[in-house]
Each structure stands twice: as structure tokens, then as C-alpha cells.
């Protein structure tokens, strides 16, 4: 009990002061946090690995740190947007679950910890920083989520990159209010790891609608850091209501249209910084879209490889990772994004492979062939998939009903067109360039 190793550095070295979490009318000090972690760690089973259930941001942080401090490999379930329960069920079949209903921070354990802390008997063990300690799942481009093993060195480096790249006010009593879940890489890095390792608090909640975001911001003292996504930002600045003063806006998870970036900076009177990253690497680069299109690499990152297969290396990566988008390096520390890789699309902040969505259509009885494409949407709106389906015996509503059973709701196509055949090459490879022409013809025929 007394020799629970803690993987922290930074402000937790002197945990006697500072607020770590705010929300729901209460503040949690770093000292209380350490007690909560120890109490939670005490309640964990003696196992090598466990699944971390999605939960409120502060509790998630406590349970994550408790698992890490017990030397467990913590499997962070919950791919994105709240479908974590399905992941917990899938993984929970083989691993114990941290944060199951009955293993919260119990008071008796907390009191026992308080006695230990007060008696000065605390021993903090050093961890092997390069060992894989947390496993995060990407959205999964094949339908099945893929685990990404992270070392503490890597997670801590991610947090340091955020702090180096963004003007996050530290040591000023500020709070990070995030509209994204803590179990998604972006949310984990900026709303859990940054507050854990640096002197800034987290907001213990996940407001999603504009009204909730405004209320959350109003509930914490300035400086406030708003961490969000383009879809939520668009809704927040689209209304004429007043939003509390914000010191910094951070957007990630999907490309942010420049026009929306300008509007957000104007309406919220704060600088907006955009983060580019992906689960395999964490934060990769940042930019201020109102000032430049070019992305600046985060500290310690190097672009390697050769066109078009560029990759990314850093000391804390076990091996270089490939870019999921097509990029063009600019100078030593910058790059431009030329476009998404042909196969991978991003919808609502999650990555999907086009062929996986197409495969879901082809599983439906009566569907012979299917192609999914994206059409340029209205400025500022997310692009939504459109399906062209060969299914002579089916109607569109039957196909949509069936595909809804198989796909995440955000990648269910908005429009489905029945076509006699799809443009495929001699090797049966889909001619994606010709699909847009086909779609235009179909739309013209309808209008």
C-alpha cells in the first residue's frame, strides 16, 4: 500500500497545493487527487492488465493513474463518441474492468491512505518509462478497433508537446474545458495528461451542446481553455448568445474550415489553434488557421521516408508511424496536408476505411456491389458519405435499415443511389475518379 509507484512528475512532486479539477460546484486539489488515486489503486485486483471503463473525466483520470501506479497495463476502452460500452463488453470478457460499478473510490480506503500520507510513510517508486503501459484503441479502419500500446515516456511527451506548441496559460489558475471524451487520444492528451503533469485544471464534465459549453465555461474562473471539435465550435459560434471569456480555443479531430476559424476567433475574441494528430502518434503538429495553412511539427518530431509515403519519428516512438493523410513537407519543421489517403475517411472525428463501409453494404442480402464517396459539402459542414449500390432486388429503405445494423451511425450514408453497375477497372479495382461523374449524372437526372 505504501509503496504504490506513481508515474507522475511536475506539479505532483509538491502535491500540497493547486486545483486539479473543477466542476459541478466543487474543486479537487492535487493532494486529494493523490489520495483518490491511492485509494482506487488499493481496490484494484492483482492482475497484469485491466480495461478502463469510460467515465467522467476526473474519475477516469483517477482510475487511469491508479491502474498505472499498480503497474497494470491499462486498456482504454471507448473508441470515440461514447461507444465505449461496446468495447468494454468486448474486452471485459477477457480482462477485469477498472471502474466497474462497485470499485469506485471508497471512503474507508481513502481514510486509510490519508493516515499513510500523514505518517509520511509514502514511497514513490520509479517506473520503467519505456514500457508499454496504456493501450488505446484507434477507431479502427477495418471495423475492428486496433490497440495502440503507449509508454509513459510517450504519453508524457505528448503532454509536453501540447504545452510547448499551444499558448496554454499555466500556473494561472486556469481550467481546460473539453467537449471531447477523455478516452479518445486528443481528449486524453489535452484534458487528462496536460492537467496531470502541468499546472492547469481540468473541467470535470463533457459539455456537448452550445448551451452546456457556455454553462461549463461560466462555472470556472478565467483563464478558460476551450478544447473542442469543428462541429461543436460551429454550433457554439453560430448563435448570437454570449459566451464567457475564453483565453484559448483548441480544435482537432477534423479539418477546421478557415472561415469557421475566423468566425470563432472573432466571436470568442481568443486565438484559435488547431491540432493535427492521430492515435498512433498523439499530437503531431499545430497551426493557427487564421494565419497560416502550414502545419508546424510538434517538438521532437521528424518527418522521414519519401514521397508519397512519409512517416513520422520521435524519440518516444518505438518505430516511425505512417501519416494517415497525404502530406508534403515544407522546410524542416512544417508540412501541408494535400488530402486524405484514398482509403481512409474521417467522419465525426473518427477514421473509417471506405472499403470497410462498402463491405458492410455488400454483406446485405441482395446487394451485389457498393461504392461510397464523399461530395464537397457546404462550407463548414462535415462531409457525409454517399453510397452507390448495385442491388436490383432491393429498395433504398431496406438497404439503409440493414446497413444501420452494421455501421457506426455517423458513417451511415445520407444518400443512397441504386445504380445498374459501378465503374471498375479490369482488375476489378473501383475507379473512384469516375464515381463523382456518376454521382453528378445521377443528381442531374433527378433534378
Amino acid at each position, binding site marked *: 500500500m505504501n509503496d504504490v509507484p506513481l508515474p507522475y512528475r511536475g506539479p505532483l512532486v509538491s502535491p500540497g497545493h493547486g486545483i486539479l479539477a473543477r466542476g459541478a460546484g466543487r474543486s479537487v486539489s492535487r493532494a486529494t487527487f493523490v489520495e483518490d488515486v491511492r485509494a482506487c489503486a488499493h481496490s484494484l485486483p492483482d492482475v497484469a492488465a485491466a480495461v478502463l471503463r469510460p467515465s467522467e473525466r476526473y474519475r477516469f483520470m483517477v482510475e487511469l493513474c491508479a491502474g498505472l501506479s499498480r503497474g497494470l497495463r491499462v486498456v482504454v476502452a471507448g473508441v470515440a463518441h*461514447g461507444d465505449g460500452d461496446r468495447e468494454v463488453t468486448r474486452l471485459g470478457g477477457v480482462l477485469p474492468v477498472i471502474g466497474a460499478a462497485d470499485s469506485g473510490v471508497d471512503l474507508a480506503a481513502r481514510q486509510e491512505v490519508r493516515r499513510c500520507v500523514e505518517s509520511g510513510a509514502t514511497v514513490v517508486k520509479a517506473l520503467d518509462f519505456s514500457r508499454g503501459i496504456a493501450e488505446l484503441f484507434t477507431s479502427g479502419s477495418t471495423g475492428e478497433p486496433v490497440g495502440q500500446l503507449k509508454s509513459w515516456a510517450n504519453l508524457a511527451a505528448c503532454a509536453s508537446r501540447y504545452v510547448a506548441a499551444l499558448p496554454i496559460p499555466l500556473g494561472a489558475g486556469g481550467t481546460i474545458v473539453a467537449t471531447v471524451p477523455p478516452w479518445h487520444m486528443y481528449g486524453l492528451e489535452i484534458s487528462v495528461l496536460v492537467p496531470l503533469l502541468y499546472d492547469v485544471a481540468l473541467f470535470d464534465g463533457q*459539455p456537448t*451542446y*452550445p*448551451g452546456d459549453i457556455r454553462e461549463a465555461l461560466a462555472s470556472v474562473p478565467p483563464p478558460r481553455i476551450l478544447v473542442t471539435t469543428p*462541429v461543436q465550435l460551429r454550433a457554439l459560434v453560430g*448563435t448570437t448568445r454570449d459566451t464567457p471569456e475564453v483565453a484559448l480555443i483548441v480544435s482537432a479531430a477534423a479539418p477546421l474550415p478557415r472561415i469557421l476559424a475566423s468566425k470563432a476567433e472573432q466571436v470568442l475574441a481568443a486565438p484559435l489553434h488547431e491540432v493535427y494528430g492521430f492515435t498512433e502518434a498523439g499530437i503531431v503538429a499545430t497551426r493557427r488557421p487564421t494565419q497560416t495553412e502550414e502545419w508546424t511539427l510538434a517538438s521532437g518530431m521528424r518527418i522521414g521516408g519519401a514521397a508519397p509515403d512519409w512517416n513520422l519519428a520521435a524519440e518516444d516512438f518505438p518505430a516511425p508511424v505512417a501519416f494517415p493523410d497525404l502530406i508534403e513537407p515544407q522546410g524542416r519543421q512544417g508540412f501541408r496536408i494535400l488530402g486524405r489517403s484514398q482509403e481512409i475517411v474521417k467522419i465525426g472525428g473518427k477514421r473509417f476505411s471506405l472499403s470497410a463501409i462498402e463491405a458492410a453494404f455488400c454483406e446485405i442480402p441482395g446487394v451485389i456491389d457498393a461504392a461510397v464517396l464523399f461530395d464537397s459539402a457546404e462550407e463548414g459542414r462535415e462531409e457525409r458519405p454517399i453510397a452507390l449500390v448495385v442491388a436490383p432486388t432491393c429498395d433504398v429503405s431496406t438497404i439503409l435499415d440493414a446497413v444501420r445494423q452494421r455501421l457506426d*451511425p*455517423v458513417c451511415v450514408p*445520407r444518400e443512397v443511389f441504386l445504380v445498374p453497375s459501378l465503374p471498375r477497372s479490369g482488375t476489378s479495382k473501383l475507379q473512384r475518379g469516375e464515381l463523382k461523374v456518376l454521382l453528378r449524372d445521377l443528381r442531374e437526372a433527378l433534378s
Partner: protein
Amino acid sequence: MTDKTALEIEIADMIVSVLALDVSPGAIDPDDFLFGAGLGLDSIDALELALEIDERYGVEIRAEDEENEHIFRSLRALAAHIGAKRTK
């Protein structure tokens, strides 16, 4: 399908035009689910609708509102909520 009120018709039009849905507003059953089965809307749509509802009717949608799940359940529930809370 039961008859729709004037507000339900107006909101059905709004949903279809804001989300560019491929259905006729008249075909939306006021008691049908808006999300999942039924119209098949998702979380991105909910945000788009929240923005539009605030602009048109001055009603702020809240996720932390206990009633939120109920509000977006059906066209009828959404219209009832907007009707009760509208400021414009």
C-alpha cells in the same frame, strides 16, 4: 400516422432542410424515433439541429438536461419542448 400540428410541420421542414435529408417532411411520423431506427439521425445531426433550434426559436438544447433524451425522441416530443420553451 396521426395528424401533425402546425409547429410539428414547421419543425419537420426544418429537420429535412437543415440536415438535407432524403425524405419528404410530410413522411415523418410525429411519433417515430428521430435517432437510431426511424429517421436515423446521429450526434452530428443533433448539434446541427440544436444550432438551428436556438436561432429560430430561441431554445437552447442541453445534453445535461435530464429531459434531453426525451426531447429528441420524436418530432412530437421536440415540437412540444420547443412550443413550451420558445422565446421567438
